[in-house]
């Protein structure tokens, strides 16, 4: 009897090995397994023992590499990974289908939520007086549904839901009770920072209703990068669809602009957030992540750009001209560099020894720090002259946060390159820093309007 089990074990191991071949589908594996078993039975009947029969049958089947190569020639399309959206869905499990339905339902809910204010006469539109209201509340229309999608998918428990919803409810109340003026700067700050804070809070649902640990935060970072790429792609397609709609209806003398602006744009943009999240969740194990690939491409380019820029500043001696928007620009630069670092970390094998790319990352960070330092230094002399407007304080605060993060990252990178610390320290520094960003975004969104009297 034990012998019989070992034969089964051998077959299942063989099966596993075959299943790893990309060009061979599980159905093909079934067919080959039937062949193997038929042959083994035949050989057993001829008097061989199980071990011998298995060996002979496997040998006669031929090298799995060769078989898989033949299959690949026959089914070259299988080498292109297909998304699980295929309608015949022979590979889609009931769980997959359930999740697809869940995602569609949540996307629909988000799209409808975008239209609820219209019932009360608040119209969405570029020139609508209700637009500041929409901007401040955008994240509240959409992100709860994304968080719900995660929560349901991860089977979150009761109190988890309570904790999850708390920040959404509280910030929703506060943001809408605050008496913002028509052209309020702090209102815009809230509109920008609330989505960031809530997006990071959604990681609580992403982690299944727990405080996300180090690994889960890293996964959330990966998820966010992929989500951004998918959303951009969907937005491109959506833009094309809208442009074509307008063109076609104009051709027959109808104006679709109102319908597009009030319905298609807000509902589509909201629904796409959840669809993109679902696609990333579906594809995470199926396809190579794009964000790290882009990072690989752009890290050297940005490092070169910054090097040349620093050289130009040093060579010409030109001071950085401080304009109103400049600080925001440098914030964006640092955010970008941080993104490049995060996504190269997210795709890196922590066990791998320091390499050229790590040195390049360090160069990138150091250059960014130098450039930002130049900007801050140029600004320092005139900061009292500007006074502290809410916009400047928000931009300066973010700049300092990023500067701190990157400066310590540079130190850790240097120590890692000197083989003094393991890479995991750098990862932990970044994931540990995420709540700082969330907290800062929440402070700007909620407290800045109060401090600056809704200016």
């Amino acid at each position: 009897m034990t012998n019989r089990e070992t034969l089964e074990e051998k077959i299942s191991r063989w099966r596993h090995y075959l299943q790893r071949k990309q060009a061979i589908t599980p159905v093909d594996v079934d067919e080959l397994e039937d062949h193997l078993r038929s042959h083994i039975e035949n050989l057993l009947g001829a008097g061989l023992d199980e071990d011998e029969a298995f060996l002979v049958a496997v040998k006669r089947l031929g090298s799995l590499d060769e078989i898989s190569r033949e299959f690949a020639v026959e089914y070259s399309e299988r080498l292109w990974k297909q998304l699980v959206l295929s309608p015949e869905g022979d590979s889609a499990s009931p769980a997959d289908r359930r999740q697809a339905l869940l995602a569609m339902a949540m996307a629909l809910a988000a799209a409808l939520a975008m239209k609820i204010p219209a019932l009360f006469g608040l119209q969405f539109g570029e020139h609508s007086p209700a637009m500041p209201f929409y901007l401040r509340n955008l994240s509240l229309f959409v992100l709860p549904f994304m968080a719900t999608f995660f929560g349901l998918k991860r089977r979150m428990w009761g109190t988890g839901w309570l904790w999850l919803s708390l920040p959404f409810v509280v910030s929703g109340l506060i943001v809408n009770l605050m008496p913002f003026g028509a052209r309020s700067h702090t209102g815009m700050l809230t509109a920008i920072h609330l989505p960031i804070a809530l997006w990071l809070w959604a990681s609580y649902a992403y982690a299944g209703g727990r405080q996300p640990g180090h690994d889960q935060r890293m996964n959330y970072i990966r998820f966010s990068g992929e989500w951004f790429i998918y959303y951009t792609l969907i937005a491109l397609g959506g833009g094309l669809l809208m442009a074509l709609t307008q063109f076609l209806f104009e051709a027959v003398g109808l104006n679709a602009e109102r319908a597009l602006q009030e319905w298609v744009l807000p509902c589509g943009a909201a629904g796409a957030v959840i669809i993109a999240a679902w696609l990333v969740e579906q594809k995470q194990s199926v396809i190579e992540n794009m964000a790290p690939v882009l990072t690989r491409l752009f890290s050297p380019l940005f490092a070169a750009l910054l090097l040349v820029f620093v050289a130009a500043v040093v060579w010409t001696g030109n001071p950085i001209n401080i304009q109103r928007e400049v600080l925001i620009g440098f914030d964006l630069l640092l955010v970008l560099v941080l993104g490049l670092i995060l996504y190269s970390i997210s795709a890196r094998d922590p066990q791998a020894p320091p390499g050229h790319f790590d040195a390049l990352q360090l160069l990138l960070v150091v250059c960014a720090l130098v450039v930002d330092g130049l900007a801050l230094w140029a600004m320092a002399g005139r900061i009292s002259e500007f006074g502290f407007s809410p916009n400047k304080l928000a931009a300066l605060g973010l700049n300092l946060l990023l500067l701190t993060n990157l400066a310590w990252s540079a130190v850790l990178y240097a120590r890692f390159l000197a083989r003094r610390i393991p890479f995991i320290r750098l990862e932990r520094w970044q994931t540990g820093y995420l709540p700082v960003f969330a907290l800062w975004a929440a402070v700007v969104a909620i407290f800045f309007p109060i401090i600056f009297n809704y200016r």
Partner: protein
Amino acid sequence: MEIDKDLVAAYATPLVLAILSEGESYGYAIIKRVGELSGGELQWTDGMLYPLLHRLERSGLVEASWRASESGRKRKYYRLTAAGREQLERQRRQWQVVTRTMKGIWCLAADPTDQLAQLTPAGEK
């Protein structure tokens, strides 16, 4: 016997089609039938049969269905289609010409000294 790859590629399709023309069958049985027909002389790498069967299925020469076998395992059975029968007929004619010609030349070539010399002018007529 070891057979050249190109030759295997050439005869494998008509052989499989011909075996299926005897009736519905499945991978392992086809391999066994090849062994029987050749007296054990033609030894295929078993796994290579399946990409071939799938190619025939995709080009519509055979159709396949999953059914439970007598042992209870599910098994994929292949059956010749009308298009497959036509293709087999075409190939049979081609192969008959080829085998007849080859047979002739092998007989003559068995004693190459005089018979080959006789064959050459005949071929030129």
